[in-house]
Structure formats: C-alpha cells, structure tokens
C-alpha cells in the first residue's frame, strides 16, 4: 500500500494495485459519516470496436455499454438494489463516453456493502428473458432524452462535429440498436472490459484504509481471473473538419437553445499535455465567456443570452472540443457578436486582470469540489483512466501564465472548425 500525501489540499490517499491488476484507491475523510465507493471500468459508449490481444476486432451494437450497466444489477438471487437497500446503502450506476461506474453510498455496514459492490459487478447474469425485458425500459429512457432539449442541443453539437468517431453516437444507443443486443454479445463485452486490470475501485469517506485494503485483497484472492492481454480499441480515422456546420432539431421550447463549439485539430496528446491543454482551455473560456467578462455582460444587456449561458471544454486522447452557448432569442445575432469578440481577443489577447481573476476562480472552485466525496471519486477516476492525476490540476492552475493562455486562445479559435447546434420550435 502506497501513501500519497497532498499537503496543499490536506488530503492523503492510499493506493495499491492487486495481483490481478485491480487498482484500489482509498481516501479517508475523518469526521465524515458516509462512505462513498465507486467501482469503474474503463469502458464507455465509444468503445464499440475492440479486440483483446490475439483476437479479431469486432463491432458491437450502439448503446451496449449502457445496456450492460443496466443488466449488471440483476443477479440469480434477484435485484441487487434490494440487497443494497437491506444494508442501508443507496446504489446507482452511470455510463459515459469512456467509462461505466457502479457506486453506493452508506453510513453503516460498509464491509457488507463493499463486498456487494465488488461481487455484483464481478458476477454477470444475463438470460434471454432478462435481456429482452430490459429493452422496454431502455426504450423509455431513450424516449425521455428525446424530449429533453438540453440533451438534444448538446448531442446535436457533437453529432455535427464528428463524422466517424463514436462520440457522436448517443450513449444509450437508439431504439433500433438496442433491439439487436443479445446475451451473447453482452457476455463478450463483459469478458473484455470487466477484467480487474481494466478497473478501478475508489473508496472515500469515514473509513480506515488498511481495513478496506484487507477486505478487497481477500475478496479478489478468492476469485480466479485469467490474465488478460491488452485491450485494443479501434477508431475509424476522423477528419479534422466538422461534419456539418449547423444542425437544427425541432422541439417545443420557449426560446431557441444554441450551442456551438470548436473541434480541436490537434488530438492524440500525451497525458501531461492533455491535462495542461484542459487547464489552459478552461481558463481561456472563463476569461472570455464567464459572468464577469465584458462579453457576457454585453450579451446579457442586449438580451441575447440568459443565466443559462456558459462554456466547457471536453477532451480525451482522441477527441477534444469546446462547447459554448445557452438559450437565446436570436442565435444568429449571438453567434455574430461572439465571433467579433473572439476575433478581437485573438488579436489583443486576454488582459492580465481577467486572467488572474479566472485563475483565482478556478482554484476556488477546485477546492470547493474537494468537499464532495462524490465529485472526488468521479473526477479522480476520470483522470486516472487517462493516465493523469486529478491532484495535478491545482499546481497546473497555480502555475499557468497569461502567455500560455493567450497562445492557447490563438490555437483553439479557428472559425473553420466551428459547428452549431440549435433546438427550436417547429415553424421557426
């Protein structure tokens, strides 16, 4: 067991990689009532073509990682939610582009709940009947998102940007694709991606690290996992350009929703550069579009945006893009003003004051995040799966310079790389 001290934020982590390859991290939070644990596999919606070392690559139906997540909760003994409930734990799971996470939070019976979490995720139970039954439920989940304009405008933007990369496919798949899923394919995906060497267990809260490690070591030692070769993920070549510059979706909304973003041309960065790119991009976006920026105040004044206006930067080792937008009565006018302001900023650069302010703001929001066990577990896992460390973010923010942010600004804002997604009422 390795001890990692982060004195600047007064946190101590304990880490160990078990013999079967499972990585375990414990972050004790003295004084906390609850324990929050996540058991994550580096397997998400984008991993739809893959092979383990020595096998032929194959493609699986869209939405299968998410389908698998639903089905893991069923055991021969019944629904695992019932077991967690009996042990006073609140359990859940989610699937994102690049990972599937199972979790619980509890204030008692931590040992039993940890065992339950590890065991149910390591015990798939799929039958033709239980797989078919799930299709109706997931169909309703997909329909729910069809009616959700915030989801539609966001995924509309990704769809407009990407030609081939599977990030443009909805995480839950489509009603058509989920009906192609059967138990054999589920087992194949499971065998590939749920090997301990592809997974991370993170436990945070009022726990004793040594006790957690003892439990997990014993649990894993009692199971037999064959060593697994490296997992290869295959992605078709993605052109640098956006797929379509503008995508419009019709839904009953009070005002048009608009999101636009810049597709990064330079992808495939090594982990350290990727992390730095993210930090600089977030500082840049906040300085330009944050609530204290002149642009934000002008746009608000002109009634082109509302409180929903914001920005984010989303990246991994093979895609990266910014997202900017919100509700606007006049998406075209908004885009025009933003373009003028961004082109001006590219010429003049961000001011020293705006940069320092954004920096302080980002440091503050990072420290606030550390109050939340849920956020720590989620963020730590996300960064770990791309071979970086969430705790490196604070020094990166602290050491960033205006010159770096301005260089980043000139690199990112290429108006040849912009895509726009709009959700508006029919007839507009």
């Amino acid at each position: 067991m390795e001890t990692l001290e982060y004195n600047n934020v007064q946190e101590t982590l304990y880490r160990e990689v078990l013999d079967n390859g499972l990585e375990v991290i414990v972050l004790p939070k003295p004084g906390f009532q609850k324990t929050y644990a996540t058991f994550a596999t580096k397997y998400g919606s984008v991993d739809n073509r893959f092979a383990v070392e020595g096998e032929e690559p194959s493609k699986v139906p869209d939405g299968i990682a998410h389908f698998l997540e639903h089905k893991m909760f069923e055991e021969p003994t019944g629904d695992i939610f019932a077991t967690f409930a009996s042990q006073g734990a609140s359990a859940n799971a989610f699937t994102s582009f690049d990972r599937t996470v199972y979790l619980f939070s509890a204030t008692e019976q931590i040992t039993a709940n940890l065992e339950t979490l590890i065991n149910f995720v390591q015990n798939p139970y799929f039958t033709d009947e239980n797989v078919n039954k799930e299709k109706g439920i997931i169909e309703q989940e997909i329909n729910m998102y069809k009616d959700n304009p915030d989801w539609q405008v966001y995924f509309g933007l990704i769809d407009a940007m990407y030609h081939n990369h599977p990030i443009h496919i909805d995480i839950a798949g489509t009603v058509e694709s989920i009906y192609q899923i059967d138990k054999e394919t589920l087992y194949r995906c499971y065998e590939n991606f749920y090997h301990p060497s592809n997974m991370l267990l993170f436990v945070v809260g009022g726990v004793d690290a040594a006790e957690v490690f003892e439990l997990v070591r014993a649990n894993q030692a009692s199971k037999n996992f064959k060593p697994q070769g490296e997992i290869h993920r295959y992605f078709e070549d993605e052109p640098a350009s956006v797929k379509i510059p503008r995508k419009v979706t019709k839904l009953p909304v009070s005002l048009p929703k608009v999101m636009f973003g810049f597709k990064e041309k330079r992808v495939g960065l090594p982990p350290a550069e990727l992390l730095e790119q993210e930090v600089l991009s977030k500082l840049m976006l906040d300085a330009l579009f944050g609530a204290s920026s002149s642009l934000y105040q002008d746009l608000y004044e002109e009634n082109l945006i509302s409180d929903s206006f914001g920005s984010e930067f989303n990246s991994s080792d093979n895609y990266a893009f910014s997202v900017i937008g919100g509700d606007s009565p006049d998406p075209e006018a908004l885009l025009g003003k933003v373009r003028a302001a961004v082109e001006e900023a590219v010429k003049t650069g961000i001011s020293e004051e705006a940069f320092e302010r954004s920096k302080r703001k980002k440091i503050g929001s990072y420290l606030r995040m550390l109050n939340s066990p849920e956020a720590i577990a989620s963020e730590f896992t996300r960064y770990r799966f791309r071979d970086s460390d969430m705790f490196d973010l604070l020094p990166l923010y602290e050491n960033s310079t205006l010159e770096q942010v301005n260089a980043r600004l000139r690199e990112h804002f290429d108006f040849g790389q912009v895509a726009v997604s709009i959700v508006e009422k029919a007839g507009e």
Partner: protein
Amino acid sequence: MTLFERGQLGRIRLHVLPTKRFKTFAISLFAGVPLSEDTVTETALAPFVLRRGTASTPETKAFRERLDDLYGAGFGFDVYKRGDSQIVQFRMDVINDKFVASSSPLLDASLKLLGEVVTDPCTEDGAFRAKYVEAEKQTLTKRLESIVNDKIRYAAERCLEEMCEDEPYRLHPLGKLEDIAAITADSLYRRYEQWLEEAVFDLYVVGDTTLDEVTALVQQYFRPKAGVPGVYAVTNVRQERGDVKTVVEEMDVSQGKLNLGLRTGILYGDDDYAASLMYNGILGGYPHSKLFLNVREKESLAYYASSRLDGHKGLCTIQSGIEIQNYDRAVVIIKEQLESMKRGELTELEISQTKAMISNHLRELQDSAYEMIAYDFNAVLSGKDRSAQQLLDQIQSVGPEDIVRVANRVQLDTIYYLRDRKEA
C-alpha cells in the same frame, strides 16, 4: 451529531455551526413571506434585481468581479415555496482562507457582500436602477416561459397547479407572467422595502467560525432592523376533494408524463410524519419500492416511476414517464399499489429496507453543509424542533400499523397526463 448555535440580531435569527470538516464556509440566508397572489411576482423578481449590484458596487461587471476575487465564491439564489410560504434563499460558498493566500478574510468579505446585496442595493432616485429592473423582468419572463422545456418538471408543476387550484399553493414560486409588465423600478422598490420589514429572516453559517464572530459581522454588514425574528404561519391543510380530478394536456412529446397528486394531510410537525416518510419510501422513494418494482421492473412500462413526499404541504406526488398508449395500464398498476398499501400488504423486508434507506439518508446529511442547513431549516418552517437523530429514532419505531394508518389517510386527488397531440 453537531449542533447549531443560535442567536438573534433584531429581526434576523442566526444559526451557526462551527466545524472544521469542510474546506469552505457555507452561508444561507432564508427570507420567507406568505405565498400570495398579490405579491408573489414582485417578491420573486426582487432577488434578480438585487444580484445586479449594490450601492458600493453598482455595476454588474464589477459586482461579479468582486465574487471572482473571493476565489470564485459560489453565489446564487433560489425562490421556492414551502407550505404556504414563498421563500427566497441566498447562498454563498467560499473557501476557507487557510487553503489560499488571501489578503482579506474571506468570511468577512462574503458576509459584507451578502449584507450589501440584501440591505443596501444599487438605487437611483429612491428606487431600483430602472435598467436593471427592465432587464430582470425579461429574465424572469424567460424563466417562467422556459418551464415548459423540461417536460418532467413541467408535468410535476402542472399537476400541483391543477390539484391546488383554489389554494395559494397553485402559484408558481417565480410568480405570474401577466404581472410582470406592470412592475416598475418604483413599485418593485416599495415591495422590497415592505419585504425587508415583513419577511422572516434566518441566516445560517457552517464552517470554521463561531457564533460570536458571525454575530459581529452581521451587526456590521446587515443593518439588522429593530424587533424580533418572525415566525412562519401554520400550513392550511385542505379537505379532500371527493372525486378524482383528471386533466389531460397535449403537446409535441415522444413520451407521456403521468403525474398523480395525493393528499396525506400529514405535516412535518405531526406525530405521524415519520410514518408518512415510511409510507412514501415503501410506495415509491427507492429502487426497491412498489412503484419501481411493479411499473418498471415487472411491466417494463417506464424508465422512472417514483413518489415524493412534501411534509410542508401534506402532499405526496407520483411521477412516471410512459409509452403514450400505456396510460390506462399504468394508472391501474399505480392505483393497485395505493390500494395494496391500504390493505396492509407490506413485507418485513420492504419495511426494514425502507428504514435502512431513510436512516442512511438522515445520517448522510451530516456530511454536507447545505444538507444540514436544509434539514435544520425544516424546524424553523414548521415550528417543530426535531433533530435528525430524533427523527431516526422515530423511523425505527414505526410499525406496519402506523404505515397502514397513513395509507388510509392518503387520498388520490388529481391525475395529470401530458401526452402527444392526437391526430385530428
């Protein structure tokens, strides 16, 4: 469990929880007034204008910069209803100075800013700045119009509106669209002054501080008005309707939203409150509950099917998203669950699981500053002082007969269904 220390300064009640557990100071100011047709819109609009600037920092850009300089202090407000009250809650979340090299103490600077926002706004000629009022009227208009965008929330709010059609509770906490046009900088400022005189004010601070420190800062920055803190009025519980009201609304949707409104008649301060929490938990609070198991797992009718208890109004609401043509079947299955609870069809397992889940939730509150504040504020609202530990003990002693008694008090009042447009 840690306890709040209490104090008061004129009309402001103070609640301070000294703790080193968090990296931040969490601040909440609650200001409540009776929910009323005549004042609901102006009361909702006021905080939108207050957050635009203060007398000392009148320009919004400079005001936002002040927040950024406090290491990006979280600052926001909410307007919502609890029982028959309309409550404005201001929140601030600022990091503890020990983690950063800050020149001025951050708690001091935060309370100074919040004090200015609430008691010393930007004014011109004895009224709010007209430009801000006009802009925020637009913002409020957009917010009210956007309720329809989120169909799950829209259906939930429409169900309550239909259910409470002749009570103040039908009102949306953000007010009424038709009132907005007539509001002026002058009329709003007069309403604001009245609000300062009449609202019930409770200020909470959780973090590495003391009651004495907070008291001194509030004295300095909030200009506390002479008098004593107000109290919230007791919620009026309406009698049952008789027939069930059914409302169907059509819109361009892919999925039907089915909402049922029930009256429990049981309030937060009542002896049966713990039993009503158990009732709701077994019915639809969790993934092991009757609604989830029967509507989702058994029949594959829905992705979500759950219930929610409102102890400040004595209501329980059920919500589910279903295939449009499955309305009749879903209603039958949901009604069956209500009936089965009345007949006392409760297993030992359902009861023990639900007790474990509610207890877990009550213990987890301690890990979040804002959850602790929200729980404690229930006591202010209801006049019933019951610690999380006491409620935990009461939950443990709820028996099946208590849950059946609650089930038989619960009345289905309204069924609301949002569906697609029928072909002409």
